[in-house]
Protein backbone atom coordinates (compact mmCIF):
# COMPACT_ATOMS: atom_id res chain seq x y z
CA UNK A 1 0.00 0.00 0.00
CA UNK A 2 1.43 3.31 -1.05
CA UNK A 3 0.82 6.42 0.99
CA UNK A 4 2.31 9.88 1.01
CA UNK A 5 4.33 10.81 4.07
CA UNK A 6 5.49 14.38 4.30
CA UNK A 7 8.64 14.86 6.30
CA UNK A 8 10.93 17.68 5.44
CA UNK A 9 11.05 18.02 1.70
CA UNK A 10 7.83 19.37 0.15
CA UNK A 11 8.44 22.52 -1.87
CA UNK A 12 6.12 25.52 -1.58
CA UNK A 13 6.52 28.74 -3.52
CA UNK A 14 4.39 31.84 -3.26
CA UNK A 15 4.80 34.41 -6.03
CA UNK A 16 7.93 32.51 -7.12
CA UNK A 17 9.47 32.84 -3.62
CA UNK A 18 10.50 29.54 -2.02
CA UNK A 19 8.92 29.55 1.45
CA UNK A 20 9.48 25.85 2.14
CA UNK A 21 11.73 26.63 5.11
CA UNK A 22 8.93 28.63 6.75
CA UNK A 23 6.04 26.32 5.94
CA UNK A 24 4.66 23.62 8.22
CA UNK A 25 1.41 22.76 6.47
CA UNK A 26 0.03 23.13 2.97
CA UNK A 27 -3.29 22.08 1.54
CA UNK A 28 -4.34 22.47 -2.05
CA UNK A 29 -7.94 21.66 -2.86
CA UNK A 30 -9.31 21.26 -6.36
CA UNK A 31 -12.98 22.16 -6.51
CA UNK A 32 -15.42 22.35 -9.37
CA UNK A 33 -18.67 23.94 -8.33
CA UNK A 34 -21.71 21.69 -8.57
CA UNK A 35 -24.59 23.09 -10.58
CA UNK A 36 -27.85 21.33 -9.97
CA UNK A 37 -29.49 20.04 -13.11
CA UNK A 38 -32.30 18.04 -11.55
CA UNK A 39 -35.50 18.28 -13.54
CA UNK A 40 -39.08 17.03 -13.33
CA UNK A 41 -39.17 13.30 -13.63
CA UNK A 42 -35.93 12.82 -11.74
CA UNK A 43 -35.82 10.69 -8.63
CA UNK A 44 -32.56 12.01 -7.26
CA UNK A 45 -30.66 15.27 -7.40
CA UNK A 46 -28.08 15.40 -10.18
CA UNK A 47 -25.38 17.93 -10.93
CA UNK A 48 -23.09 19.18 -13.66
CA UNK A 49 -19.72 20.81 -13.20
CA UNK A 50 -19.47 24.59 -13.08
CA UNK A 51 -16.51 26.85 -12.53
CA UNK A 52 -13.36 25.89 -10.69
CA UNK A 53 -13.24 27.25 -7.13
CA UNK A 54 -9.81 26.14 -5.96
CA UNK A 55 -8.15 26.95 -2.69
CA UNK A 56 -4.74 26.75 -1.04
CA UNK A 57 -4.17 27.04 2.69
CA UNK A 58 -0.71 27.44 4.18
CA UNK A 59 0.65 27.55 7.70
CA UNK A 60 3.85 29.55 7.90
CA UNK A 61 6.19 30.80 10.56
CA UNK A 62 5.96 34.54 10.62
CA UNK A 63 9.25 36.31 10.03
CA UNK A 64 10.00 39.97 9.55
CA UNK A 65 13.57 39.24 8.48
CA UNK A 66 14.75 40.37 5.07
CA UNK A 67 13.16 38.44 2.16
CA UNK A 68 11.19 36.15 4.47
CA UNK A 69 7.50 35.66 5.16
CA UNK A 70 6.36 39.23 5.71
CA UNK A 71 8.45 40.60 2.84
CA UNK A 72 6.93 37.99 0.54
CA UNK A 73 3.32 38.41 1.51
CA UNK A 74 2.72 41.99 2.55
CA UNK A 75 2.38 43.42 -0.95
CA UNK A 76 0.27 40.48 -2.12
CA UNK A 77 -2.76 41.26 0.02
CA UNK A 78 -5.61 42.26 -2.23
CA UNK A 79 -3.88 40.98 -5.34
CA UNK A 80 -3.51 37.76 -7.29
CA UNK A 81 -0.43 35.62 -7.58
CA UNK A 82 0.82 32.10 -8.29
CA UNK A 83 1.47 29.26 -5.86
CA UNK A 84 3.28 26.01 -6.55
CA UNK A 85 3.36 22.96 -4.33
CA UNK A 86 5.36 19.82 -4.96
CA UNK A 87 5.35 16.75 -2.68
CA UNK A 88 9.14 16.45 -2.60
CA UNK A 89 12.15 18.42 -3.75
CA UNK A 90 13.07 15.67 -6.18
CA UNK A 91 12.68 16.19 -9.90
CA UNK A 92 9.14 16.66 -11.13
CA UNK A 93 7.73 13.36 -12.37
CA UNK A 94 4.56 11.29 -12.52
CA UNK A 95 5.14 10.30 -8.89
CA UNK A 96 6.18 13.80 -7.85
CA UNK A 97 3.84 16.16 -9.69
CA UNK A 98 3.99 19.91 -9.28
CA UNK A 99 0.68 21.70 -8.74
CA UNK A 100 0.37 25.31 -9.79
CA UNK A 101 -2.46 27.62 -8.85
CA UNK A 102 -2.28 30.58 -11.20
CA UNK A 103 -4.02 33.83 -10.36
CA UNK A 104 -5.17 33.00 -6.83
CA UNK A 105 -6.28 35.82 -4.56
CA UNK A 106 -4.96 36.65 -1.07
CA UNK A 107 -7.65 38.49 0.83
CA UNK A 108 -6.03 38.86 4.22
CA UNK A 109 -2.71 38.46 6.01
CA UNK A 110 -2.37 38.03 9.77
CA UNK A 111 0.40 40.40 10.80
CA UNK A 112 0.94 39.28 14.39
CA UNK A 113 -0.15 36.05 16.06
CA UNK A 114 1.65 36.40 19.35
CA UNK A 115 1.42 33.91 22.19
CA UNK A 116 3.78 33.90 25.14
CA UNK A 117 6.52 31.34 24.68
CA UNK A 118 5.42 30.24 21.23
CA UNK A 119 6.63 30.89 17.73
CA UNK A 120 4.53 33.28 15.66
CA UNK A 121 2.67 31.27 13.01
CA UNK A 122 0.13 32.48 10.48
CA UNK A 123 -2.54 30.70 8.47
CA UNK A 124 -3.19 31.92 4.94
CA UNK A 125 -5.92 31.15 2.45
CA UNK A 126 -5.55 31.80 -1.26
CA UNK A 127 -8.74 31.46 -3.25
CA UNK A 128 -9.59 31.18 -6.91
CA UNK A 129 -7.19 30.73 -9.74
CA UNK A 130 -6.63 28.07 -12.33
CA UNK A 131 -5.18 24.80 -11.06
CA UNK A 132 -2.83 22.82 -13.24
CA UNK A 133 -0.48 19.94 -12.62
CA UNK A 134 2.66 18.90 -14.43
CA UNK A 135 4.68 15.71 -14.33
CA UNK A 136 7.73 16.88 -16.21
Amino acid at each position, binding site marked *: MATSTYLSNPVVTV*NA*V*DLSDQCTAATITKTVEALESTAFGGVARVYVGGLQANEVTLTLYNSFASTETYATL*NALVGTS*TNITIKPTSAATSATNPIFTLTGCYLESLPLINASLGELDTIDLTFTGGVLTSATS
Partner: protein
Amino acid sequence: MTKYIIESEKIGKIGDEFEPTEGINVAALLEGGFISTAGEAKSHKVKSEPKE
Protein backbone atom coordinates in the same frame (compact mmCIF):
# COMPACT_ATOMS: atom_id res chain seq x y z
CA MET B 1 11.55 46.12 -21.78
CA THR B 2 12.39 46.22 -18.10
CA LYS B 3 15.04 43.75 -16.95
CA TYR B 4 14.95 42.33 -13.44
CA ILE B 5 17.89 40.99 -11.44
CA ILE B 6 17.53 38.37 -8.70
CA GLU B 7 18.54 39.69 -5.27
CA SER B 8 17.49 36.74 -3.09
CA GLU B 9 18.32 33.04 -3.21
CA LYS B 10 14.66 32.36 -2.46
CA ILE B 11 13.75 32.94 -6.09
CA GLY B 12 16.94 31.86 -7.83
CA LYS B 13 20.62 32.52 -8.24
CA ILE B 14 21.58 36.00 -7.10
CA GLY B 15 22.67 38.15 -10.00
CA ASP B 16 20.81 36.18 -12.64
CA GLU B 17 18.09 37.77 -14.70
CA PHE B 18 14.57 37.14 -13.42
CA GLU B 19 11.97 36.53 -16.08
CA PRO B 20 8.50 36.63 -14.50
CA THR B 21 5.98 34.10 -15.72
CA GLU B 22 2.32 34.89 -16.21
CA GLY B 23 0.61 35.65 -12.93
CA ILE B 24 3.71 36.62 -10.95
CA ASN B 25 3.28 39.85 -9.01
CA VAL B 26 6.46 41.72 -9.94
CA ALA B 27 5.59 44.78 -7.84
CA ALA B 28 5.44 42.62 -4.72
CA LEU B 29 8.83 41.09 -5.51
CA LEU B 30 10.33 44.54 -5.99
CA GLU B 31 8.81 45.83 -2.76
CA GLY B 32 10.03 42.77 -0.85
CA GLY B 33 13.58 43.18 -2.13
CA PHE B 34 13.65 39.89 -4.02
CA ILE B 35 14.49 41.50 -7.35
CA SER B 36 15.75 44.83 -8.57
CA THR B 37 15.33 46.71 -11.76
CA ALA B 38 18.30 46.73 -14.05
CA GLY B 39 16.65 49.39 -16.14
CA GLU B 40 15.91 49.57 -19.78
CA ALA B 41 18.69 49.28 -22.26
CA LYS B 42 19.16 52.81 -23.48
CA SER B 43 21.41 54.35 -26.03
CA HIS B 44 24.52 55.97 -24.57
CA LYS B 45 24.71 58.40 -27.46
CA VAL B 46 24.53 61.95 -26.18
CA LYS B 47 23.07 64.55 -28.38
CA SER B 48 25.32 67.55 -28.76
CA GLU B 49 23.97 71.05 -28.76
CA PRO B 50 23.32 72.44 -32.19
CA LYS B 51 26.00 74.85 -33.35
CA GLU B 52 24.82 78.30 -34.07
